[in-house]
């Protein structure tokens, strides 16, 4: 059974305080690892797809990396508007989601 574990469950940062979110996974036949952002009351919004170990992708203050067992979402100098829940999902036969990390960035 495919499994995705995200840590921490919640993270509070000061504006400008960089940190990383973790997504560890076990899956048979990884076809892709996805990161989504979800704001309260909204649907998940796509951020990144990673397909193979060693791959990295960046978008503004976010950078996603992938190894054979986990992925990290690095947030550099976050701003309050980065506050959201960040979801990780792995694609094998279907897409399996983790429970998410709730990020709060205080001014």
């Amino acid at each position, binding site marked *: 059974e495919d499994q*995705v574990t995200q840590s921490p469950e919640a993270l509070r940062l000061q504006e400008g305080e960089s940190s990383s979110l973790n997504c560890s996974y076990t899956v048979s036949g990884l*076809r*892709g690892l*996805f990161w*989504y952002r979800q704001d309260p*009351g*909204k*649907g*998940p*919004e*796509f951020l990144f*797809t990673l*397909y193979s170990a060693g791959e990295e992708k960046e978008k503004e203050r976010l950078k996603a990396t992938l190894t054979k067992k986990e992925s990290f979402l690095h947030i550099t100098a976050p701003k309050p508007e980065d506050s959201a829940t960040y*979801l990780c*999902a792995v*694609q094998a*036969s*279907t*897409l*399996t*989601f*983790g*429970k*998410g990390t709730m990020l709060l960035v205080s001014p």
Partner: protein
Amino acid sequence: NAGVTQTPKFRILKIGQSMTLQCTQDMNHNYMYWYRQDPGMGLKLIYYSVGAGITDKGEVPNGYNVSRSTTEDFPLRLELAAPSQTSVYFCASSPGTPQETQYFGPGTRLLVL
């Protein structure tokens, strides 16, 4: 470009009532999905479709039914609502192969009392 739209946004049902959650996408995507999201839990796949006329069960299909008569529409039917079906329901679509990005709708919040 509207993307994935869902109606209604919010609904209260009594136990035993039936309803259909509507989902429409205007991106000409072949694949469509229904998920439910419960507090503190990851999204769980209910049903999915790889094209018009083809549907398949996901992880948590019990109590739900779907149909896919057109590429654009993928309604989710609840026949006999139960309190355990209180959740937020998301519809998603993707262009073709499973490893392509899924794009989500805004969700339908359902409360069964």
